[in-house]
């Protein structure tokens, strides 16, 4: 498989980043542009690391798995929320604008506190299996059976990585601080589907039956359009709304 080498001029990328360090009382939010020569198979993870190492070591951003699995690196990339680690620069124009996800507390530059937000959501919605006598259940005996198809459906909803892109893309979330968004509503539908969870629809209504929950959704569909895991968020919200409206 011989390839004829073709000399191509590498692009110079102009990466404009919304900078602000809340720890520094002198810091004012500002846009700063970095120039960077594009490399083969360059992702925004590689580009931002390069900028930090070679141009501005104070630049803040969050990467963990750098494989699209952990949900740490959600940011606004040319106006759209997405996972920076798996965004290839070759799919973007020469001029790239990066901003932190809105609706979350800013830690600095591109780093936002999604963890605190998600923990709050989990506590509020009690996103765990509610089952009597869980601590006393035997772990020596055969596990309870589950239909294989149901297990697959549960995983489909559980693939959410809590990256925050759906919140950043949500009209309601920009206006209502207490809106639990698609990430929260999807989790409710996940536990609703799970026979191990003994909560009833009336219980779920207590959690999401108002404007901070399922009735706050304006069906703008930004969540589903922007979900990096392509979760069926709009369908799940519609389904949940119907269930909750009939409680």
């Amino acid at each position: 498989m011989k390839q004829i080498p073709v000399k191509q001029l590498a692009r110079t990328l102009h990466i404009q980043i919304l900078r602000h360090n809340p720890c520094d009382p002198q810091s004012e939010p500002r846009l700063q542009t970095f120039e960077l020569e594009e490399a083969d198979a360059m992702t925004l993870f590689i580009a931002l690391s390069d900028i930090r190492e070679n141009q501005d070591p104070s630049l803040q951003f969050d990467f963990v798995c750098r494989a699209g699995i952990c949900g740490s690196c959600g940011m606004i990339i040319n106006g759209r929320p997405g996972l920076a680690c798996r965004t290839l620069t070759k799919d973007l124009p020469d001029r790239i604008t990066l901003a932190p996800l809105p609706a979350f507390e800013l830690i600095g530059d591109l780093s936002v506190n999604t963890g605190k937000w998600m923990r709050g959501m989990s506590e509020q919605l009690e996103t765990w299996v509610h089952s009597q006598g869980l601590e006393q259940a035997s772990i020596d005996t055969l596990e309870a059976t589950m239909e294989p198809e149901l297990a697959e459906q549960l995983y489909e909803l559980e693939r959410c990585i809590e990256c925050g892109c759906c919140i950043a893309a949500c009209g309601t979330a920009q206006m209502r601080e207490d809106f639990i968004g698609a990430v929260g509503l999807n989790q409710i539908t996940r536990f609703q589907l799970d026979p191990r969870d003994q909560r009833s629809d009336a219980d779920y209504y207590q959690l999401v039956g108002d404007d901070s929950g399922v009735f706050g959704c304006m069906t703008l569909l930004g969540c589903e359009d922007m979900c990096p895991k392509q979760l069926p968020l709009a369908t799940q919200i519609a389904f949940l709304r119907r269930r909750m409206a009939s409680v």
Partner: protein
Amino acid sequence: MQIIYTDVLVIGGGLAGQRAAIGAKRRGHDVIVLSLVPAKRSHSSAAQGGMQASLGNCLGAAGDNEDIHFTDTVRGSDWGADQEVVRMFAHTAPKAIRELTAWGVPWNRVQRGDHEITVNGEKQTVTEADAAHGLITSRNFGGTQKWRACYVSDGTGHAMLYTMSNQAIAENIPVHERMEAMALIHEDGRCCGAIVRNLMTGELLAYVAKATCIATGGFGRIYRVSTNAVINEGMGAAIALETGIATLGNMEAIQFHPTGIFPAGILVTEGCRGDGGLLLDAQEHRFMPDYEAEKAELASRDVVSRRMEEHIAAGHGAQSRFGEHLWLDIRLLGKQHINTNLREVKEICQYFLGIDPVTQLIPVRPAQHYSMGGVRTNHRGESPQLRGLFSAGESACWDMHGFNRLGGNSVAETVVAGMIVGETMADFCDSTAGALNISTALVEKFGRRQQQLLSGISDTGGSESAFELLKLMQETMTGNVGIFRHGERLQEAVTTLQSLQQRSQHIRLRSSAAGANPELVAAYRVQRMLKLAQCVAYGALQRTESRGAHFRADYPQRNDLEWMRRTLATWPDKNAMLPTLDYETLNIMNMEIPPGWRGYGAKDYIEHPDTARRQQQIDSVLQGMEGANRHTQQETLMPFKHLLPPHLRGNNQRLGDEQ
């Protein structure tokens, strides 16, 4: 400096840390978990293919039990593991998975009826029994005799971690996120918590605890090419080492995973090969059967990775602009299978390589993947040297993996270790030894020391770049302390690392940004990573044999005569340029399975005289026990149940057993 008091401090919010936290909390102790990142983003979430537990539900798993899991794990370890710990693990793994099932993990289940599977490149039809329908199913993995890896598609770690984290939230366990433990506070051989840095504000604070558990995962980022997350820099192991008292075990035992995508090193699961995927070379020839007639692609990871590199060195690698690699072929599994059971793999291929694995080959090459070594503990997870210090999961060396870990045994280990070490810590806190007598002056002293260290870095007057030193270290490790090791290259690595250690004392910070300052973070971490790297390189240099993943081209035989020993590293003098190495003997006469051939890989090893003696002893014991059940036989050879917390001692029920 703010001081926070708790009973149990768990450093690390992955599967092991959170399970240990839940255990201690349920016993009535206050627990705080510290995590570098939001807990659900921990590296546990990156585990893809499965969790080993001998449930024996599906056809490929029929007849599986703890004995076979034990045997596979001991062979996998190349007899480097502590066999009592492996027994405890194999026995508890089914309980761990059943507990997680009750908590909500949506494990894939057995579907009754006919299924098409791919074995050795050929399609076969198998029929699952009615009785197994709806129980947890499992897939094939390397180095195992049974299909034992229970899975949730190929997002097993993600599903497990979310369930575990949600359970910890349900139990009201606080997780202090974006917190980095900088030093263990200790006095007179007693650990009493940690000095911690807030990675959002840069502030230092102290956590005082009766029991402190390191559950910080591995340290793969000392290598350039690693599947590990960028946070896997081994800071937990490093602060244990920096006490000068706690030991690190078998740091030279580093696993390289056969299928990191090339060149990024991102993992694609062993499940690809377990489900029937093949490794091909530049000519698209399936080469593994040429080397490993029996297990082919499904020999243990150390063997497959070595064979791959051997094959590339023999000139069979595919060429690319980034260098040479081999191919992973999962096309034969079909679209349906890939879209349901290997969907994360598909996404990774799509986003990072721009290919569709349903129709295209995946470029792969071995990449650093796992740290078998870590904070040395006993079978209960306690540091033998530093009272009040515990460790669980990849950060620990208790030591169930020896010199090679089997795929799927790590996520299983995290939960099992958490279940055991959580109890150990609760026992410790309940005992008189758990009482803590600590002066705030001591806490302040440790806090001041960290403060001085940080301001010292900002003011060295030097000119070195932390990022540059990190790169040089990573290059050295990948280049000289990789899959094939040699005395000369290792010596070169040790010398280079020493010079980097020296240079790391002269870092110049270009930024004095308020807050955590990422450059300062890189600077203090690289100093610590260099010490860990030195433990690996120097330990590898001293170990003049080949065992599991540690392969010395100049000493290609496993040498049981001289090396049935575990390496223990300490760093008693903080200005020293090398760790102090010590060794503890693995006693063959206590083993349930004395050293032998693994069933794959080289058959060439130097035997220890005890091996024959112990085998004879075992044979004669078993001869006198004909007719006894397997539990009684096992109990006679190497009792282990007394080592487990009482509630984990029961036998595991399987399909067909009486309740």
